[in-house]
């Protein structure tokens, strides 16, 4: 087993293990913090797939933005000194059966299908290719994305401000 295979196993274990803590933990603080492991592990998987720019974007936006936002929301809505269970769950057994059957079918489909073998890839920086595509074939979705972000920003400000009663 080479070093890169061992690192791949480690990254996969961190991703899945942290996601299991997110799904099963009884404390919402633990859930929120183990999202960090999942997001960082997914960024590592992108590196294995030769997608360096997507890995950087994943770290910047997910870890630097969304995770901080989620932690803010958790801290603002909970009295975290309470010892009670902060992360209630219901219907666990039924959900476990449904999701278990579902993941079994998915994994069997993945195992049975004869996938194409990997070509001999050369790992080059993908930034140039992505930039060309954004300003050429994907120009309209790229511009629409800025509109969507502007609308989301204004919407978040309008929804979360306090109403001033006259």
């Amino acid at each position, binding site marked *: 087993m080479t070093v890169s295979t061992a690192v791949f196993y480690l990254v996969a274990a961190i991703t899945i293990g942290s996601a299991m803590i997110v799904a099963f933990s009884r404390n919402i603080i633990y859930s929120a913090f183990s999202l960090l492991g999942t997001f960082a592990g997914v960024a590592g998987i992108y590196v294995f797939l*030769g997608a360096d720019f997507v890995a950087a974007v994943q770290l910047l936006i997910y870890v630097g933005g969304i995770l901080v936002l989620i932690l803010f929301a958790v801290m603002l809505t909970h009295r975290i000194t309470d010892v009670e269970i902060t992360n*209630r769950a219901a219907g666990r057994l039924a959900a476990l059966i449904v999701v278990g059957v579902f993941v079994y079918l998915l994994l069997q489909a993945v195992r049975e*299908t004869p996938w194409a073998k990997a070509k001999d890839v050369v790992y080059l920086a993908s930034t140039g290719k992505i930039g060309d595509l954004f300003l050429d074939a994907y120009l309209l979705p790229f511009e629409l994305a800025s509109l969507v972000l502007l609308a989301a920003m204004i919407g978040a400000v309008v929804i979360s401000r306090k109403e001033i009663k006259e």
Partner: protein
Amino acid sequence: MTPGFSPNELSSYLMIGAVLFSLGLFTVLTRRNAISVLMGVELILNSANINYVAFSHFGSGNADGQIYAIFVIMLAAAEAAVGLAIVLAIFQLFHSIDVEAAEALKE
């Protein structure tokens, strides 16, 4: 044919994506806390992104899948901002973020 679990086989990435999706689905189904439901949605979006980038890497070799992954990340950021703003508004109104507590549309 049972492929192994190694970094140069497509099936290993698809398996990681499948497990991550199932954990996200379990979180969305069972949690009663609105923020936890949003965390499950983030897990599902991440698993979809892994599939995009993996098929792009093992398939055609161009960067189309990576573009789609970037668009999904962008939409996830917008969704998190608006979703958490709604959660904070619900908390101000009902003093609870259980999704069962917020079943009335008006005060």
